[in-house]
């Protein structure tokens, strides 16, 4: 008899949602009154369920999570509707009662593990605080519990790391600390707001695995907020798609991915690069673009082969080495150096895209900066369009830069906010004395059209442009000098999925028309697969594998290449239950003590042009 009722209770408990959001509308105060950024949103999360909210920047997904936590600035924001946690109506709780919910019933982890921990307190104390604000514990009880939590999130040598400070942890380890903190009071609901966005892909794999495991162990519900369709497919049971504050569609993740009804859902999914979608193709391919309003796919033009393999390479790099010395002590003695780039060799032909791919600290950006002489390489040979980059004097260096230009990652920081877009784009032309101001403006107007902007936008200032538009401006600026090579350093990494696809397509178009060569530096394997002719995988300053894109992706040889590819989330919900069982390895440091002699490396040729490092 007793057994029956308890089972009945369990059944109702399973039905009753942990969190229920009804008609949530959040508005911010602006000069002209209240502006809503999330409108009429409703969803439930059942116990043990994972619901993902997915959308691009400005879609209101983070505001939703902050509304649930009531962490938005009072006075400047207004939350309407109903948010129920079990039988509590969160919006009607007093501040003090809400404080008791935060961290206890609902816990949250954030996007930026590097800045989300307080730099002046040991991590153990910060986790302990999450315990002691909600219950009274003695110091030693708290310490024991924190150690248990640190072990739970798989931090090696947990007990000894209690008294260490955040800066002594890597990004991935800090996110583990954040998760430990969130789990401290065994919350019913964990809100994870872009928890892996700032992390390297192999670390992202570890953290996703960890969240899944802990969810099983603790039996909590998870609200997962992300812009990454691959991550959505891997973690969530149900998915809610947001677009500019509105809920576009909600359903099981499988339905959303395979039977999405709304044109925006389909457009978003079409724009997602999928690793492995290029099997059997030698050339790069444009991203399919779907009209957001109609849901119709626009015709996908094929690309022609632009690579001039028979000519001398436009960029030739032999044994390039760049090291940064570190000095310490009273007499600033050299204690060692960061071997950022170590004996890197490759060549790039006209009309070709060579991608340098790897994780943070692998030396890919330093390689880009070394070949343009933005940093001075330690040794090696670099030839750009006939210039010997290593020996240039100041004035020839300037002339050389006409041949090789850069586009950087952050479209917000790489344009001077006080310069109109017109002045920014014309500046290189005028600085290099290539013609009159009038000619500069005509050329700039022409390029603005080529990059998909209108010439009248040249009077505007950077803050009037979106991220994608700014990146187009940066590309136009790079093209002002008619360069032969463009070094695109994570040029599409900061952009939203649909914008990323458009900018990648733009780069391909420009290559088709202008025969540009790209040194495409990126951490994103799926984008790299789409846009490149050849790929070089970098690890700890060295190229571990290089070859034609198809060869490297279809037949990866080096263990690191394989690890990298396995870690990429694939936007396919069928992989939901998969776990990678990755080790908690951290990315190693390229710091070497003074007097270190790097080993000689040998390469094995797998197929034509496909080389893999031995050892």
């Amino acid at each position, binding site marked *: 008899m007793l057994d029956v009722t308890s089972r009945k209770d369990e059944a109702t408990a399973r039905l009753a949602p942990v969190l229920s959001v009804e008609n949530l509308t959040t508005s911010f105060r602006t000069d002209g009154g209240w502006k809503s950024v999330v409108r009429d949103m409703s969803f439930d999360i059942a116990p043990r369920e994972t619901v993902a909210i997915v959308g691009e920047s400005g879609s209101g997904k983070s505001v939703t999570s902050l509304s649930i*936590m009531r*962490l938005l600035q009072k006075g400047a924001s207004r939350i309407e509707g109903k948010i129920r946690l079990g039988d509590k109506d969160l919006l009607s709780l007093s*501040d003090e009662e809400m*404080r*008791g*919910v*935060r*961290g*206890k019933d609902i*816990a*949250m982890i*954030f996007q*930026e593990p590097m*800045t*989300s*921990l*307080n*730099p*002046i307190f*040991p991590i153990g104390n910060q986790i302990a*605080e*999450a315990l002691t*604000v*909600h219950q009274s514990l003695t110091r030693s009880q708290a310490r024991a519990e924190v150690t248990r939590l640190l072990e739970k999130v798989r931090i090696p040598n947990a007990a000894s790391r209690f008294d*260490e*400070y955040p*800066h*002594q942890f890597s990004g991935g380890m800090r996110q583990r600390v*954040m998760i430990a*903190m969130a789990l401290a009071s065994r919350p019913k609901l964990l809100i994870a707001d872009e928890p892996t966005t700032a992390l390297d892909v192999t670390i992202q794999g570890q953290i996703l695995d960890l969240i899944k495991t802990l969810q099983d162990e603790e039996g909590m519900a998870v609200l997962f907020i992300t812009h990454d369709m691959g991550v959505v497919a891997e973690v969530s049971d149900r998915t809610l798609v947001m677009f500019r504050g509105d809920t576009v569609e909600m359903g099981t993740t499988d339905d959303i991915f395979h039977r999405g009804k709304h044109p925006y859902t389909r457009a978003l999914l079409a724009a997602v690069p999928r690793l492995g979608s290029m099997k059997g193709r030698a050339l790069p391919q444009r991203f399919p673009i779907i009209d957001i309003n109609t849901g119709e796919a626009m015709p996908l033009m094929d690309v022609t082969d632009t690579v001039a393999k028979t000519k001398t390479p436009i960029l030739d790099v032999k044994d390039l080495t760049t090291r940064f010395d570190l000095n*310490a*002590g*009273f007499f600033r003695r050299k204690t060692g150096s960061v071997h950022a780039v170590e004996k890197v060799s490759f060549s790039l032909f006209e009309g070709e895209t060579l991608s340098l791919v790897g994780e943070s600290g692998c030396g890919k950006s330093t390689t880009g900066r070394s070949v343009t002489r933005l940093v001075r390489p330690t040794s090696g040979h670099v030839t750009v369009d006939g210039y010997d980059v290593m020996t240039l004097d100041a004035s020839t260096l300037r002339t050389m830069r006409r041949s090789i230009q850069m586009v950087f990652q952050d479209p917000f920081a790489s344009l001077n906010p006080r310069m109109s877009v017109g002045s920014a784009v014309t500046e290189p032309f005028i600085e290099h004395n290539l013609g009159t101001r009038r000619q500069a403006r005509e050329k700039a107007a022409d390029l603005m059209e080529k990059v998909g902007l209108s010439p009248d936008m040249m009077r505007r200032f950077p803050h009037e442009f979106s991220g994608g538009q700014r990146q187009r401006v940066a590309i136009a600026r790079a093209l002002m000098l008619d360069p032969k090579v463009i070094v695109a350093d994570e040029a599409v990494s900061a952009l939203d999925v649909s914008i990323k696809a458009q900018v990648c397509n733009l780069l391909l178009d420009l290559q088709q028309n202008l025969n540009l060569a790209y040194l495409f530096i990126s951490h994103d394997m799926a984008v790299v697969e789409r846009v490149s002719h050849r790929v070089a995988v970098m690890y700890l300053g060295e190229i571990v594998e290089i070859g034609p894109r198809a060869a490297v992706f279809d037949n990866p040889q080096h263990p690191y290449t394989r690890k990298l590819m396995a870690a990429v989330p694939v936007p396919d919900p069928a992989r939901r239950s998969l776990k990678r069982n990755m080790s908690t390895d951290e990315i190693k440091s390229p710091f070497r003590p003074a007097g270190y002699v790097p080993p000689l490396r040998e390469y094995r040729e797998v197929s034509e042009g496909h080389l893999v490092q031995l050892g």
Partner: protein
Amino acid sequence: MFGFLVQRVMAAIPTLFIISLIVFSLQQLLPGDPALVIGGGEASQEMLAQIREQYGFNDPFLVQYWHWITNVMQGDFGVSFRTREEIGPMLAAKIPVTLTLATAAMLVSLVIGIPAGILAAIWRGRGWDHAVTVAALSGISIPNFWLGIMMILLFAVHLGWLPASGYVSFFEDPIQSIRTLIMPAIVLGAGLAAAMMRHTRSAMLTVMRQDYVRTARAKGVAEKTVILKHAFLNAQIPIITLATLQFGTLLAGAVLTEQVFSIPGVGKMVVDAVFNREYQAVQAVTLLSGAAFVLMSLLADVLYFVANPKLRTKTL
């Protein structure tokens, strides 16, 4: 910690050396013949020549510097030409007076400036913020001698609550000492309190926007703890910088305040010395003020070290 301290102290030595060199050479450039001061107006040419010889005024610059600096390092700052008193012991009697005044003024500025700044940051854009900003602006703009005179008029002359002038050592009569110090300390500290408030406010505004403050709130930490522990302890660095660097300015500002309140401190002594061309006394005070600045920046380094675990845990 020890290694860090040694490193900082070692780095301070060349700075002190350069200061002493500048102080000494500036004095040499001043117009007026010190021999004339010593000998008096009616001294004969032979007597002046003898004085110059006796005091070493004819020696080459570096020799003079060497004599001076070696004496200074033994605590001998020379003898007053006028009163024949030794300058060293004279200073030793006056320095504690000025230090007490400056420290009291610093306390006033911290006690007023920091809480006012924190509150202004929390209630940004509201009544309190505006009121505090206006008060701060007044604090910076009102000349402190005027403020001093007005306070004496009100609290000493009209109300009779506080003594108008004088100085009592804290160790002799603490209560009377505090009573005499209140007005000078407020007068001297007002400007710094205002600056402190502005710096605290802007540091707090920056810190309150940080991700880790949001993390603390998401943990369910009470707002008071969020502000005082998570935010304020991170906002200390600019406050430490301001407080330590401005301590030297307080010492300089003490000159005027000591005049207004007739406090027998170093400030009063230096004014007298300048008027009487007691160049050795001026040199001594200038050198000591320079040393005070160096000492304070050393203190700032130590405080940074304590406040910032990144420095503490760095392997040197």
